[in-house]
């Protein structure tokens, strides 16, 4: 989607290695979110950010960390990848705290072997 890009689009990594996914926005939106999507679970919130250096945990944050040093970038790190973290990861942005709709990125398909 215009204004938000995720990289890489696909990644295969080995168990135990660290992995960083990047979300970049050009909309200057304050709020950014990382979700994972798995069959049977829908989308689940991993971490979110409400400003530069302001982040907090979502419902499935174990094994993940995030950083936001600039408004436009929100990084998701898998500290030591496990097979259970094989998933499709989506970044989303929103304009204000009342959430007038999210704009989603195209997703990163991560496979941990």
């Amino acid at each position, binding site marked *: 989607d215009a204004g938000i890009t995720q990289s890489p689009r696909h990644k295969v990594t080995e168990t135990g290695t660290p992995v960083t996914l990047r979300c970049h926005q050009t909309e200057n939106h304050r709020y950014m979110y990382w*979700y994972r999507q798995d069959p049977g679970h*829908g989308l689940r919130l991993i971490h979110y950010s409400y400003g530069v250096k302001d982040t907090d945990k979502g419902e499935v944050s174990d094994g993940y960390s995030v950083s936001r040093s600039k408004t436009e970038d929100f990084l998701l790190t898998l500290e030591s990848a496990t097979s259970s973290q094989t998933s499709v990861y989506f970044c989303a942005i929103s304009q204000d705290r009342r959430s007038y709709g999210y704009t989603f990125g195209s997703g990163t398909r991560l496979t941990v072997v």
Partner: protein
Amino acid sequence: SQQGEEDPQALSIQEGENATMNCSYKTSINNLQWYRQNSGRGLVHLILIRSNEREKHSGRLRVTLDTSKKSSSLLITASRAADTASYFCATERGGTSYGKLTFGQGTILTVHP
């Protein structure tokens, strides 16, 4: 447990027919949103209805919200093959939720030409 649960899980109709999808949730909300996801793509925001609204329209979409029953419905009128996608409801809970959305597992809609 899921905050938003869609029903049915899958729906198959002919082009020109109407499609109705339902969503139930458990806690009080600020707003409820509907998203569409085409295969292999990110989610696209369709419509947002606030807790003090009962009905909202956008083109061929009609959304209703019944806060007493904690339920919502999405009606797509005169469906087209291009409407084939997964549809998700998402709720923003009350309080200082920073716009965090909780998604249901989705309804897979197939529209046959």
